[in-house]
């Protein structure tokens, strides 16, 4: 059972470059999320999608974009990376987005230099 698959596992990126973090789930969950995890700040929601074809902004959306063309995939794009986007990024999913269990991927460690 794969659950949530994130790629790449880690990446070093030059500032100003474009980067897409990939996320795929095989649980047919309707809701998907992107969080960033920073020491001392916990997990902060970047963007979410409650169903295929719709997306919404979380707490820290600036500099990031998402798309949800189908149920399984939810890529996160950094159009022009900046050092403050150095973080660990987690993709997650849940069945309906109504206060039930979130399933997280193993994360992508991104360093922007």
């Amino acid at each position, binding site marked *: 059972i794969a659950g949530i698959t994130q790629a790449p596992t880690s990446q070093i990126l030059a500032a100003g470059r474009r980067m897409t973090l990939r996320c795929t789930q095989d649980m047919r969950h309707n809701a998907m999320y992107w969080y960033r995890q920073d020491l001392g700040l916990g997990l902060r*929601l970047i963007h979410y999608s409650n169903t295929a074809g719709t997306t919404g902004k979380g707490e820290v959306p600036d500099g990031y974009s998402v798309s949800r063309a189908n149920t399984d995939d939810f890529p996160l794009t950094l159009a022009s990376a900046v050092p403050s986007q150095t973080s660990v990024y987690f993709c997650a999913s849940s069945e309906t*987005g109504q206060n039930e269990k979130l399933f997280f991927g*193993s994360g992508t460690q991104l360093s922007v230099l």
Partner: protein
Amino acid sequence: QQQVKQSPQSLIVQKGGISIINCAYENTAFDYFPWYQQFPGKGPALLIAIRPDVSEKKEGRFTISFNKSAKQFSLHIMDSQPGDSATYFCAASRGANTGFQKLVFGTGTRLLVSP
């Protein structure tokens, strides 16, 4: 502005001891309070959750205590084991069954259980 304040930032407990992590919130509309456990190199995983209609929920060695009037909730790990060493996050969300919900997470507590 941190909507859910978590303490302590780190905690060292001896094997067999009780680990206690505390969280406080301001938004009285919050009505779902989960705890997530995260091991190094892994994503967080749901450990236990509570709704404000009860004051306590126990699952094995893990207990959530909830104080609605004080707007506080805590995680107690009884008989702590080295395998419990992980980072723990409290979280909160509001408005169950009224649409899409977004969890707000605390800043995390790194627990180390010494052998």
